[in-house]
């Protein structure tokens, strides 16, 4: 893939207004752009990076605001660049909308924004809103990737800095090894969403399973005990019933008892049984009466009557519903024959809120009519509860009395009975008592509604608790398995990345060293020893600064070459801090490194020409070099500037753009101390 930059244009930003056209006389292999310090070289570099990578899309206002031009604000601010990707033109434009006040006051609350516009032939040639490069180049324009071909000396130097990990980061970006990091991140997110951020979070360890299993076993044991009580209780009840029945038969058949006493006891027993039956029925009826609230108190009746009467009197709900008025507004005329104009419609729409919708009206109607109808029904008996209470009380008293009579009769019978028969009667009493206790225990289990699983005797509640624990066990086990799978995937990603990186590293070191052997010979010979987080050179801490930069550029170009990328390179201020005598260590190799059909763009200041651009000039055909000098208007006196070639000069709002080799090589304005610190 070939990528060249054809032009860029900026307006109203912290760099000169105007157009830099690198394709004016066809693409050149070397492009020297000379700009004095403080003219906006770094801004150009950042804006080119931002335009290509879309990195300002969604950036905060303060980041955007730093491009605001304080000295000479403009109504319009934008940066636009054309690149050619395999000869197809792609235009990226960033339109700036500055929060002027915040920019001027350097406020932290800056609401500056940008708008990206993209256009290219395959996209229909239209201006597409947003950062939308063609799909096939998009991954190559990732912000980390763009830094590999649009960079400054600082970036290249970081490749050798042991405190940085740039060298490996570049490898990750170009070879897309960071896809493994993304996979690890994605699995972490998946696990977090599925387990950690859900109520399953407490149940993801082996200890969780043990706890749930123990609880389940406790509940199962409890159910077993309760079921044992039930089944043994049932058997006991049958046994007791049979025994009582046998004793009854024996007592009945025994002729030693007085017939009258026996009959009396039986009669008393029959009365108690009959009253018990009646008691149960009356109690049920009693509850049914209480279930109707108006039976509870006459004041409830009077209050409800007042409520329904008021609802009728106030006409709640009104006979017309909201729907009637909604339909009315659709008519041409109102029901009073007046025209249904906007004013009328508004009034109806405003007032219709006072009326209910049909459903609401229906429940209000039912409320008032139901109360009225039921309270005024002929069969409504206001005294039903007091009568039933009286009946219940009477029955209760009768029952208690009958029970006492029975006990007395039985005692009399026992007293008159021979000893063995009296013993049988005592035994019968004990059996009946025992039966009562067993029945009570069974009833406690069957009717328990205690929901606390630690206290309950309800088998149903315990079974539900077991299901809960089984669910937890299943979740814990699946969580553990999931956790293990996640760890396996992570280890697989990390190891794969490590292995691939080692293989790649070896191959890249070989390629770099072969090329370095061609470039630096004799005493200047340098070789890469290793590339870990940074590049380390063989048997020496560094090479000259020029050699380091050359190695850095070589490293980046080999990485780009692996992806079959012939990309333009922009190198800002390569020789700024480099002594003149080692600059050739950089300039000479660059001539070798830049491909014949490549595009090398460098921003320099006049002091960087010596042994850098001059060396390249002497090694390269003049037609292969583009010269441009850009400087701010009104910054230098006429004496400081060589005479301007008018036909090769473009004057813009705030700068001169001079496209001339001679001017380029003679441009050496004196920069005062204050400016040189800019």
């Amino acid at each position, binding site marked *: 893939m070939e990528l060249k930059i054809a032009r860029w244009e900026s307006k109203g930003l912290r760099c000169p207004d105007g157009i830099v056209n690198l394709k004016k006389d066809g693409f050149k292999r070397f492009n020297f752009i000379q700009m004095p310090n403080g003219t906006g070289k770094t801004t150009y570099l950042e804006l080119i990076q931002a335009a290509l990578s879309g990195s300002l899309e969604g950036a905060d206002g303060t980041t955007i605001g730093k491009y605001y031009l304080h000295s000479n604000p403009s109504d319009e601010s934008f940066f636009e660049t054309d690149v050619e990707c395999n000869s197809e033109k792609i235009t990226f434009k960033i339109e700036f909308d500055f929060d002027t006040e915040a920019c001027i006051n350097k406020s932290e609350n800056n609401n500056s924004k940008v708008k990206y516009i993209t256009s290219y032939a395959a996209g229909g040639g239209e201006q597409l809103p947003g950062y939308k490069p063609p799909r096939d180049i998009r991954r190559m324009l990732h912000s980390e990737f763009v830094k590999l071909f649009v960079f400054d000396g600082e970036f290249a130097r970081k490749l050798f800095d042991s405190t940085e990990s740039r060298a490996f980061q570049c490898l990750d970006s170009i070879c897309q090894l960071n896809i493994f990091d993304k996979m690890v991140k994605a699995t972490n997110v998946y696990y977090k969403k599925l387990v950690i951020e859900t109520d399953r979070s407490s149940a993801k360890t082996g200890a969780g399973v043990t706890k749930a299993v123990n609880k389940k076993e406790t509940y199962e044991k409890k159910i077993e005990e309760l079921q044992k009580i039930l089944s043994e209780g049932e058997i006991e009840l049958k046994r007791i019933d049979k025994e009582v029945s046998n004793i009854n038969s024996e007592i009945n058949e025994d002729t030693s008892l007085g017939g009258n006493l026996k009959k009396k006891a039986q009669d008393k027993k029959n009365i108690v049984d009959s009253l018990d039956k009646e008691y149960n029925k009356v109690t049920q009826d009693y509850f049914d009466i209480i279930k109707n609230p108006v039976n509870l108190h006459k004041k409830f009746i009077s209050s*409800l009557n007042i409520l329904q009467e008021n609802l009728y009197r106030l006409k709640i709900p009104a006979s017309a519903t909201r729907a009637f008025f909604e339909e009315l507004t659709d008519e041409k005329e109102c029901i009073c024959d007046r025209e249904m104009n906007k004013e009328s419609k508004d009034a109806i729409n405003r007032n219709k809120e006072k009326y209910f919708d049909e459903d609401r009206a229906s429940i209000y109607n039912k409320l008032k009519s139901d109360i009225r109808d039921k309270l005024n029904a002929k069969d409504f008996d206001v005294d039903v509860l007091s009568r039933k209470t009286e009946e219940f009380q009477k029955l209760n008293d009768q029952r208690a009395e009958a029970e006492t009579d029975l006990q007395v009769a039985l005692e009399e019978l026992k007293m008159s009975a021979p000893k063995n028969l009296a013993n049988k009667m005592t035994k019968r009493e004990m059996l009946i008592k025992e039966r009562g206790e067993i029945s009570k225990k069974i009833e406690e289990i069957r009717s328990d509604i205690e929901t606390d699983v630690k206290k309950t005797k309800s088998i149903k509640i315990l079974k539900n608790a077991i299901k809960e624990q089984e669910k937890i066990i299943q979740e814990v086990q699946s969580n553990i398995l999931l956790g293990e799978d996640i760890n396996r995937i992570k280890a697989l990603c990390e190891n794969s990345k490590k292995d691939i990186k080692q293989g790649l590293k070896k191959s890249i070191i070989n390629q770099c060293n072969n090329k370095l052997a061609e470039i630096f010979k004799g005493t200047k010979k340098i070789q890469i020893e290793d590339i870990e987080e940074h590049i380390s050179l063989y048997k020496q801490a560094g090479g000259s600064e020029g050699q380091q930069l050359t190695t850095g550029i070589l490293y980046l170009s080999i990485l780009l070459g692996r992806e079959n990328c012939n990309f333009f390179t922009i190198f800002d201020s390569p020789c700024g801090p480099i002594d003149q005598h080692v600059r050739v260590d950089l300039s000479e190799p660059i001539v070798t490194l830049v491909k014949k059909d490549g595009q090398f763009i460098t921003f320099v200041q006049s002091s960087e020409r010596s042994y850098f651009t001059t060396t390249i000039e002497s090694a390269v055909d003049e037609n292969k070099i583009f010269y441009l000098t850009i400087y701010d208007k009104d910054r230098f006196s006429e004496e400081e500037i060589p005479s301007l070639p008018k036909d090769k000069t473009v004057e813009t709002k705030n700068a001169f753009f001079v496209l001339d080799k001679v001017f380029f090589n003679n441009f050496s304005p004196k920069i005062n101390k204050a400016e040189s610190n800019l």
Partner: protein
Amino acid sequence: MFRLIKDNRNWFKGISKNFSTLFDMYYLCLMMGLAANHKGDDPDSGDLIEYWPTEYASYSNFIIGLILIAEARGKGINIKEKSSTTEHLNTFLDSEELSRLSLKKGFKEANRYANGGCEIMMQKLEPPHYLGEFLKRYQELLREEVNKNKNFN
């Protein structure tokens, strides 16, 4: 949703076998709360059902009416005045709900009365063991509470 918290349900444990639905307990508590004009906290657990059980369906308008009266009197709403009465009904009732009680106020205040009613019973009655005996004491206590309650005087 009608709600009755666990502790309140457990208080009825001695007679719970006589109940055909858990709502029986709720009803007894609710009526006691209305009778005594006593509300407890709005419970956040103990879901029962969101409609009137069959046995209570035909009395539901009476119960709703009593809630409306208690709340209107408690808040000083004049039920002889149309707009305030209409607003009161609109607040407590909702035609979308199966019970016709609105979620925000209708259910909420009913549940608070039920909670409060159970508090009264716990204070003034022994935990029940026999339904008949309990019902007799229940209706006596309820009458006493209504007689003291200004909402129904």
